[in-house]
């Protein structure tokens, strides 16, 4: 055993965490802006020096026996999702791509056009997830789309996760045009059966085998055991571990995770989300136990302007009686200065406000909603998405929450609101905080030693 070094080559910061594997404690962490333009190792070494200094103060021999990393540098794992009907396979493809820790650039439906093909070339995804048709269902559209994608002038791996009946033809079309294509089980084999795990696993494998190399991240990283997964995937794994537990260690049950970052706000729920009370009819695509949504317009740095515009559009400022002097100007400055760390009172206040708004809007979008239909017999509630009212725990992570002065006040925005009873948010959750920023580190450790990883989480996440 000994000490483990866990690294996140993030989009803005490279973060390092050291864990004592014998004592099962967190030793320290450090960060430095990611140096992806020159060589990611430059920033890494600076962060490592700082971490080593911190640890040696504790009189511990620095000898990293285990080195694991995740990465979302150079844009993360950028995915274009293609499906047939927007609310069915296109939606399923998006859920699968996000669940694999990807960043979904765009979702397409029906037959792809030549213009859309050109657009994909400009978007330059790292991977295309091609779906469409249930097994035995529509074949025409996915074969057409395979033809269109075979004409792409960019080199991009394509994952085929659509109608099994057209897989052979689609594969041949793509291979003939020298496209790299992998066939995997349909993400929606039946209309009422979502099957995203095989596609997610394949995406992770491709990320390791092709995509990291293509991004030029791995040239000099031989001394790290390996980059195991995209960063979001590591955080998602840690959440799953905490909720479900392992064979030997008990989990804490259903959970909602919120990660407020600079560019996006992620929400992940670990719950079947079945209606907690009677009188509901469930409609729409079946929901996965682990569901991740990413809001690209909500973030407290890069996306701060978008966030403010969204908040204004949704009349948020008025509803919450927010009056802050020069807010627009401040937010504009933040969106240009993405490495900015708030120090004075006013800046901290602005950050808190932006994080709170991000949390509220992102969670409102994530959770299920119901509509009441009046039938001749009685009113019936139709549920779309997950009923998360009974989820007992909300876990906060990401700079926007962790670094806030009062994280609880931000996480409280996730609570069910009597004024909007149709938005099915947790009613009386307890709040956990990832105070030491260890979620990604635990997610990485979980690959090798899940029991220890879970005990670490339980020890270092704090109830607030």
């Amino acid at each position, binding site marked *: 055993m000994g000490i483990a070094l866990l690294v996140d080559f993030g989009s803005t910061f490279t973060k390092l965490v050291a864990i004592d594997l014998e004592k099962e404690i967190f030793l320290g962490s450090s960060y430095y802006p990611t140096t992806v333009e020159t060589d990611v190792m430059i920033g890494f070494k600076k962060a490592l020096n700082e971490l080593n200094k911190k640890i040696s103060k504790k009189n511990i021999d620095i000898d990293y026996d285990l080195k694991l990393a995740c990465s979302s540098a150079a844009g993360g794992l950028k995915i274009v999702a293609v499906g*047939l009907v927007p609310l*069915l396979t296109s939606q399923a493809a998006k859920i699968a791509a996000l669940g694999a820790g990807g960043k979904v650039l765009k979702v397409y439906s029906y037959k792809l056009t030549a213009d859309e093909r050109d657009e994909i070339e400009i978007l330059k995804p790292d991977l295309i997830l091609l779906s469409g048709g*249930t097994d035995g*269902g*529509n074949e025409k559209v996915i074969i057409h789309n395979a033809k269109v994608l075979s004409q792409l002038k960019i080199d991009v791996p394509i994952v085929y996760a659509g109608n099994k009946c057209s897989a052979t033809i689609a594969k041949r079309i793509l291979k003939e045009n020298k496209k790299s294509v992998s066939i995997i089980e349909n993400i929606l084999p039946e*209309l009422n059966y979502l099957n995203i795990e095989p596609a997610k696993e394949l995406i992770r494998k491709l990320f390791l085998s092709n995509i990291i190399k293509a991004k030029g991240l791995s040239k000099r990283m031989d001394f790290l055991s390996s980059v195991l997964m995209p960063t979001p995937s590591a955080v998602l794994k840690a959440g799953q571990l905490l909720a479900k537990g392992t064979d030997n260690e008990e989990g804490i049950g259903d959970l909602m995770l919120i990660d407020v970052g600079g560019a996006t706000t992620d929400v992940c729920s670990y719950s079947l989300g079945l209606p907690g009370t009677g009188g509901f*009819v469930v*409609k729409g695509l079946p929901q996965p136990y682990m569901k991740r949504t990413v809001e690209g317009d909500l973030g407290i740095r890069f996306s701060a302007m978008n966030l403010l515009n969204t908040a204004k559009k949704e009349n948020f400022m008025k509803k919450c009686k927010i009056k802050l002097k020069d807010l627009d100007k401040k937010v504009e400055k933040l969106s240009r200065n993405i490495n900015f760390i708030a120090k004075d009172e006013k800046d901290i206040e602005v950050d808190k406000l932006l994080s709170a708004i991000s949390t509220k809007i992102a969670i409102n979008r994530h959770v299920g909603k119901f509509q009441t239909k*009046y039938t001749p017999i009685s009113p*019936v509630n139709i549920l779309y998405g997950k009923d998360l009212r009974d989820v007992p725990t909300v876990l906060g992570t990401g700079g926007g929450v962790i670094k806030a002065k009062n994280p609880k006040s931000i996480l409280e925005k996730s609570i069910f609101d009597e004024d909007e009873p149709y938005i099915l948010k947790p009613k009386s959750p307890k709040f956990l905080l990832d105070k030491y920023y260890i979620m990604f580190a635990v997610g990485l450790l979980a690959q090798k030693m899940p029991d220890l990883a879970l005990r670490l989480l339980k020890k270092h996440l704090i109830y607030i």
Partner: protein
Amino acid sequence: MIAGKRKLKIVLGVIGSDVHAVGNKILENVLTEEGFKVINIGVLSPQEDFINAAIETAADLIVVSSLYGHGEIDCRGMREKCIEAGIGDMQLYVGGNLVVGKKDFTEVKKIFEEMGFNRAYPPGTSPQQLIDDIKKDFNIK
């Protein structure tokens, strides 16, 4: 089953704000038993759900049930939506208590045929009648 090769695919559901699930389950069982591939979208289904399901599964036929008397309102515009969605030649059947009151069924049938439904069934139709008609319309022996 078309030309003895593959199973005929049927999208089945109860339209509108109608929660009558029993007939829906019976039809699902009977049609599946007969060898058809049934995609049952269940009760409280808007027109769009029928159409989306039919596109994704490349269905051959949509069978709409309505028991609560508002069938005429719920079904209006369905053929037009099918045309718009690119499945204009889809076979549409409808059956149940399609209108309120004791209207003569020939009149009701005419209303639904004018709305673009290929077949309309009165209350009390036996499932066998439906099966016979499907076989006739799709040339299944």
